């Protein structure tokens, strides 16, 4: 499949702003073996990278994986190709969040009793990752 112009632009921007090029990945899947939250993902981290290589942007956009990623940096620490997958996942999240009005977390979604209990740090982090 020939990647769309939109996808090529996305990959160019990713390279410019993170220094990451998914094309470098050779699919060893060490990231997926290391990731502590794969059980909740619909695509494994190395599968996301493969789809990005092939230009299946819509499948990546529809995936839960970038929103389950907790940016723990374990994948990046172990990648034999020195790819920073946490930055790539951030790119996928931002390509959604930078659309007008897009958000993945509304303050009204958080139960009031949880809101009282959560550390500020959790709230600031979650809103930074899920909204703009």
């Amino acid at each position, binding site marked *: 499949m020939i990647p769309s112009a939109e996808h090529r632009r996305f990959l160019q921007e990713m390279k410019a702003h993170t220094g990451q090029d998914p094309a470098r990945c050779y699919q060893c899947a060490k990231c997926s073996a290391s990731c502590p939250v794969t059980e909740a993902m619909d695509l494994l981290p190395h599968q996301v990278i493969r789809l990005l290589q092939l230009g299946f942007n819509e499948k990546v956009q529809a995936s839960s994986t970038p929103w389950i990623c907790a940016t723990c940096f374990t994948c990046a620490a172990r990648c034999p190709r020195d790819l920073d997958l946490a*930055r790539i996942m951030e790119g996928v999240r931002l390509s959604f969040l930078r659309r007008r009005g897009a958000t993945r977390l509304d303050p009204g979604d958080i139960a009031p009793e949880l809101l009282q209990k959560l550390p500020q740090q959790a709230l600031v982090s979650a809103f930074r990752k899920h909204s703009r």
Partner: protein
Amino acid sequence: MARIRYRYFPGCTLKTQAQIMEQTALASAEALGIQLEELPRWQCCGAVFPLYEDEAISLLSPVRTLAAAGGEPLVSLCAACHHVLKRAQEAVRRNKEVREKVTDFLQVDYGGEGRVLHFLELLRDDYGFSRLAAEVRRPLAGQKLAPYYGCLLLRPGGVMQFDDPENPETMEEFLAALGADPVSTAYRTECCGAYLSVTRSDVAASTAGRIVEAAAKAGAEALVAACPLCRYNLENSVGSGGPRLPVYYFTELLAEALGVAPGEEVKPG
């Protein structure tokens, strides 16, 4: 030798849920003769480091803090604050475009100067764990404690330079200096679930549950954390049925060993 002054950045959670972390750290620093001076009018570090470097707005706050330290060593207690400040400094040093955009906007002159330290690094590298051991008045003898490092102190290893990211020893050495019996588990560097406790508490319960279970199996009576969100997840996100362990900040144990925990008076040595 002139005493070094450290500028201290508390961060949002240390003024609310994690007040005990700040209280015990400040009492311990005073007992050890370490001068921690809180930065005036500081603001939130941003909690997460922006991984897309055109997100300049998210860098304004940490860079303002770094510049406010005026080249003096800047110390944090919270692993997340330390992570954001350290990586923002690295971004400013490495990326000229980012540096110019952010410092122009803030109207500050900052090129990445100054040491950015976590309090554990200060104790290890500047004060020294052997000197710390000599100051212990109430050794935590026989206490089996499991260090929990989490992600943000260790990774990315090249920027954080805290310890070996796969096999760290700093917290074990710190606990040993306090007289405790550190218990290491393979899960001490695994993610606690971080902010997923807001959006997917089921996932955070699972990640935190594995860490607590590993520590309990290894015979630990408590876990030791360096981040309020790690502590929250380890305490609150443990799935039903799994074991529970108390979680302490490393500063609480420090204050206890030094005999300056809240409610205690320093006894003349």
